[in-house]
């Protein structure tokens, strides 16, 4: 995919859509008590999921983590599904069985996150190994935070992917914290990217708040993976512009840090550069914002009236023969273009 005007505009749309959906969830619905359970958002990190997932093709897969809303949206999860998911409705992606970011749908090439951080890392390797076995030129994008890299499964997964030359791109959002724990208490290295060398795979560090940089690094990694060159580890430096979750007062982060990073806001940055280069007009930006507000308002209006699941559904779907509907394996057979 080219990094042309249209792509930049698409990315702006998805980044802004992400921001607005998450703001609505975190600052409205959560406070109104309409969200079931916890809320984690990716404010300030939107360029990472969007700059990478935008490049995927039909049968590619993603394994998103808990701050990658943009990747879901790009793969075709609708705002209405997202809101319904967060409010525990039957029309949510997981029909009320699962929480917030744990949305998955193999028809759209999305693996549902498991809370145990980094558990998807070897799973992504297995999906990629399957592409290789089937001689499909597809790739998997697997996302995680800096904190997740401390887990054993992260290591096992990267190592296996690398030995197998599996077509997967590992994308780390390094947002300087794992919950309240700063980087220096998690690892004795400054860049997560150096860990790539431990697996004989390229490790690159990019400015995660610059969507074009994320795009270019991912493009290179994807192209290498599709060519059979194996996995890449991409570290995107960014900052978590909120608490860990909606209930975290985040006292452990200095105000100055937020102020500093506010200036590097990835959306502002892309918008400014598009305006300065006259790629878009002020008018168009306003229209985009209005379009997003409208989409979200409409989606939310529907989702708020969506039904909760029926209590008896609790017992459904533990095993195949109990499933209300046909199982959704065979990911890519059913896949249809989502954008």
């Amino acid at each position: 995919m080219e990094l042309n005007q249209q792509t930049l505009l698409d990315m702006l749309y998805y980044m802004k859509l992400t921001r607005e959906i998450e703001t609505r969830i975190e600052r409205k619905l959560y406070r109104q008590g309409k969200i079931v359970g916890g809320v984690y958002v990716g404010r300030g990190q939107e360029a990472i999921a969007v700059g990478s997932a935008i490049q995927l093709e039909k049968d590619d897969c993603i394994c998103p983590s808990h701050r990658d809303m943009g990747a879901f949206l790009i793969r075709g999860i609708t705002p209405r599904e997202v809101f319904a998911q967060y409010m525990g409705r039957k029309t949510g992606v997981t029909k009320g069985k699962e929480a917030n970011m744990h949305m998955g749908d193999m028809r759209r090439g999305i693996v549902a996150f498991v809370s145990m951080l980094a558990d998807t890392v070897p799973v992504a390797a297995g999906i990629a190994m399957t592409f290789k076995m089937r001689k499909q030129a597809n790739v998997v994008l697997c996302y995680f935070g800096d904190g997740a890299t401390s887990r054993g499964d992260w290591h096992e997964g990267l190592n296996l992917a690398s030995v197998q030359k599996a077509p997967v791109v590992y994308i780390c959002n390094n947002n300087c914290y794992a919950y309240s724990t700063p980087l220096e208490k998690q690892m004795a290295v400054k860049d997560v990217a150096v860990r790539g060398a431990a697996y004989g795979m390229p490790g690159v560090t990019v400015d995660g708040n610059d969507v074009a940089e994320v795009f270019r690094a991912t493009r290179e990694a994807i192209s290498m993976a599709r060519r059979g060159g194996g996995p890449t580890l991409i570290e995107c430096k960014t900052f978590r512009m909120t608490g860990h979750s909606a209930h975290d007062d985040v006292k452990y982060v200095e105000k100055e840090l937020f102020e500093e990073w506010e200036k590097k806001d990835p959306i502002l940055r892309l918008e400014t550069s598009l305006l300065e280069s006259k790629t878009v007009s002020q008018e168009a930006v306003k229209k985009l914002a209005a379009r997003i507000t409208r989409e979200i308002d409409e989606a939310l209006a529907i989702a708020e009236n969506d039904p909760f699941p029926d209590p008896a559904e609790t017992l459904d779907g533990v095993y195949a023969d109990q499933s209300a509907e046909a199982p959704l394996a065979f990911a890519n057979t059913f896949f249809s273009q989502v954008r």
Partner: protein
Amino acid sequence: MAAVTYLEAIRQGIWEEMERDPTVFVLGEDVGRYGGAFKVTEGMIERFGEDRVVDTPISESAIVGAAIGAALMGMRPIAEMQFADFISCAFDQITNFAAKCRYRWNAGVPLVIRGPSGGGVHGGPYHSQNPEMYYVHTPGLKVVAPSTVYDAKGLIKAAIRDEDPVVYFEHKFLYRRLKETLPEGDWTVPIGKADVKRAGSDISVITYGAMVHLALEAAAALANEGIDLEVVDLRTLVPLDKERILDSVKKTSKAILLHEDVRTGGMAGELAALIVEEAFEYLDGPIMRITAPDTPVPYSPPLEEFFLPKTSDIIRVARRLAAY
């Protein structure tokens, strides 16, 4: 003395043991300055310093592994799992290393692994689990699950003093919902002793953790109908207080086994086997299990509500059993 919550009682217990014994220390994710995700370790780093309140990377297996190493050296580490669900990531270290050290080579590993378990807070499949049976089924471990503020404090202190590895499941639903005024001074609740939380003559309800309160509610409701429930709170799952359990069933001749954990392979099975093996002659009716169904813990309120055992379930089953 002011009343304290279940959560504060756990903090107090750890705090007192850290004051008393310099070998006691805490490790886990965000347990330092942040005071832990649920604030159980709040204030400890200020009092005891970074050496004794250790923030770790997200590495449950290494947290437990390091705790084992320290325990082998005569320390008494307390490893926090941010949610009990994540104990799965340390399963191998707990069941193969910690549990077996003493048996294999006579090496004591006096450590505590603790964390918030249980549902009722819309945590979904990964923030609501009751993982006790994986550890109950592993010889070499002790397993504790307090239901009251008093027991929470007394048992955490006993767990810390125990010479063997103890897995301590606190129930997050109870954290701030229970309050009690506790006695002053240094006291513990012995590991391995069940507690009759309500004496009764008709049916023994054998349970533990948050379910104890449902059993007590059901007992109160049924008292009007002339059905007198005895509520036995196991408190410790391993070692099991067989005597107390059997005494109760021998007295009432009927038993309901109640837990929040899923059914198959759950604690109720172990209890049923114990009772039919050792008190068969006393039984005047089938032993009834009330448990969560065999599914993951669902997220949406109507589903989670359906999933969790309810007071009404106990009342219904008790009526049936009383009429048997």
